[in-house]
């Protein structure tokens, strides 16, 4: 059975607190913290972007899988902040990890579910026997307009997964996709920041698709919440995944391990995949995991994984996601944050 043979995460060290952003805009920090269910978010350094973070995460995945990167037949990167409008992120990544030249690559874009799209296609390639190993990455340095509600949550991070048929650490038991044309969030070419439809992004967008995909895969597999040790839902803020879990009958304990958003922010394409890495860091053999992504526009991908015995042997080979989240943090003031995010530029 095909599945994940290695995984890796990357979270930048820099953080900015909700209070620091709220102070600048005269906003009420406690109500933002309460409303969004988050306290701080990660910020990429000036020399970091989707590609560099993808490389960091991919290297950890390769270390855990202990494979020869030249045997990777596909490198897929899902992001909504690909550094180039024209030029693939995957070529740089494949070059950096030593997977070139016999490798296929593609950039995926589907708002916050580009990462899980990459995972799905990678899995299919491996299952079909067309390639031996495939690398799928979800990574973003997501954008939020200054003062917009998104600025409090738009964060940076990456998660990488190697798929293969042998030596899996988590088998993929089932997948399910649920998609409609629902324009809740978008960014047109040449625009720096996305636009969104406020509260419309909740019930008719996020919840309809996340619940639709979750219910779909549960029905397809004949499983219920009790069959899972863990579940991770796309986490644009702290509240939505908890609300989705509750509506589906999952307990807080089942979702808490993968719910990184209160201290991480929304890493967009990296969001639910990063949650999955945090779960793989602690899951036991036999544990079943439900992952449901969400991308505005809108759609959700759902996966059911079963952790194998091999997990114990590989997880210690690279840094744990929670360690990157909780340790060695550097807190930025708003001015430095603006500089790092390219919102202000030094005169030539």
């Amino acid at each position, binding site marked *: 059975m095909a599945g994940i043979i290695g995984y890796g995460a990357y979270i930048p060290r820099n953080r900015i607190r909700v209070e620091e952003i709220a102070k600048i805009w005269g906003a*009420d920090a406690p*109500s933002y913290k309460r409303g969004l269910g988050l306290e701080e978010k990660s910020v990429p350094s000036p020399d970091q972007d989707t590609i560099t973070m993808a490389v960091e995460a991919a290297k950890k995945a390769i270390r855990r899988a202990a494979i020869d990167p030249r045997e990777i037949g596909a490198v897929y990167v899902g992001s909504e902040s690909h550094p180039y409008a024209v030029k693939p992120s995957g070529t740089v990544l494949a070059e950096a990890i030593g997977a070139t030249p016999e490798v296929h690559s593609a950039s995926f874009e589907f708002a916050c579910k580009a990462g899980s799209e990459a995972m799905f296609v990678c899995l299919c390639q491996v299952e079909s026997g067309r390639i031996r190993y495939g690398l799928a990455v979800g990574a973003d340095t997501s954008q939020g307009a200054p003062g917009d509600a998104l600025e409090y949550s738009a964060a940076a991070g990456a998660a990488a997964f190697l798929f293969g048929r042998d030596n899996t650490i988590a088998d993929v038991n089932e997948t399910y996709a649920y998609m409609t044309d629902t324009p809740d969030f978008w960014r047109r070419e040449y625009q720096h920041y996305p636009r969104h*439809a*406020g*509260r*419309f992004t909740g*019930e*008719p967008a996020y919840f309809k698709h996340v619940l639709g995909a979750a219910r779909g895969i549960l029905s397809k597999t004949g499983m219920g919440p009790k069959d899972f040790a863990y579940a991770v839902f796309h986490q644009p803020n702290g509240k939505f995944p908890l609300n989705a879990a509750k509506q589906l009958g999952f307990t807080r304990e089942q979702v808490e391990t993968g719910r990184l958003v209160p201290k991480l922010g929304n890493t967009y394409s990296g969001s639910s995949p990063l949650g999955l890495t945090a779960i793989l860091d602690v899951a036991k053999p036999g544990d079943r995991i439900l992952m449901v992504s969400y991308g505005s526009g809108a759609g959700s991908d759902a996966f059911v994984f079963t952790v194998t015995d091999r997990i114990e042997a590989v997880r210690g080979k690279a840094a744990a996601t929670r360690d990157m989240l909780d340790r060695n943090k550097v807190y930025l003031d708003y001015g430095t944050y603006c500089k790092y995010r390219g919102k202000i530029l030094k005169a030539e």
Partner: protein
Amino acid sequence: MRDVAIIGVGLNKKWGELWNVSLRDLFVEAALNAVDDAGVDHLDSMYVGCMTSGLFVGQEHLGSLMADYLGANPIPATRVESACASGGAAFRQGFIEVASGISDYVLVGGVEKMTDVGGDEATYALSAAADMEYEAYHGVTFPGLYALMARVHMERFGTTCKQLAQVAVKNHKHGALNPEAQYPFEVTVEDVLGSVMVADPLHILDCSPITDGAAAVVLCPLDTARRIAKKPVVRVLASAQASGTIALHSRKDLASIESTSQAATKAYRAAGIGPRDIQVAEVHDCFTIAEIMVLEALGFVETGKGGQAAESGMTALGGRIPVNTSGGLKAKGHPVGATGVAQVIEITRQLRGDAGPRQVKDARIGLTQNMGGTGGSSVVHILGAA
């Protein structure tokens, strides 16, 4: 003038953020419910109360649109606009048309589809109810205007933030009994005072919400109603409307709502009753301070004593004059153009003895007060069990 009765009422199933329901669908659902409730087989004329469908969904010409989609062509259909009092003003036009003898069966509906735009656009659309050139263009929004009024009321009469909060607490308590309400749950004084400040002293829980919704009633001559009505007949005892300055700064007194006092005085005179005869009322609590000031303008309490009404329980269910038994704009929701019509529906249900757990015992006379802007227009109706 003929006596006029209300023989049918209808709302769309539930008010709230109705992402999948369009402006026309909202209206038609409420209108069909009202026609069904009335049991009439035709209409002679219809009115549509709506504040600003142009800014909210880009649609004008609502009379034609709604008559068309209701299947009511070719009857005359006219839109009535008086900002947040559009529904009340539309009802008054329907009343006048039946009373005058021009038409027998008149449908009056109110509708607003507010969630197709984001928060900033909605705030702008609503600010069109203020004086655009002298207020809105300078950045004043409705929470800001009502906050100014609240400040003056607090300075002059010692009204407190806690008293404001108690209006929200009471209306949510009523709203919790109304399954059609947008927010059918209770809040505490601490919830209100702890909620985010919008315009000092108004917290977000002092403000009515953005709502999609519609309401409709069918009017006919009282004689006809007595003959054909399937349910207890409710009679329109008085219809009055008054105008006040559109801009707040033109008022002689920021702490009172003159147009409501004027309309109420005329209504009481027409009905031959006084404020003490009112047993239940629906008033325009777009902000908690508004309910306080309106109670004073209606003569339910002395000037300056409005803050004590919710605090003392006088305006709660079981009190001397239960106010906003539906939950009010605060908890039931405020789809601007529908509000005035929905107020008439709540009082009609009360007078029919049809208000379920919200029923005011032995209610025979009720009042509605619907207001545009900061009181640039006010419409008061007094209804009685026939």
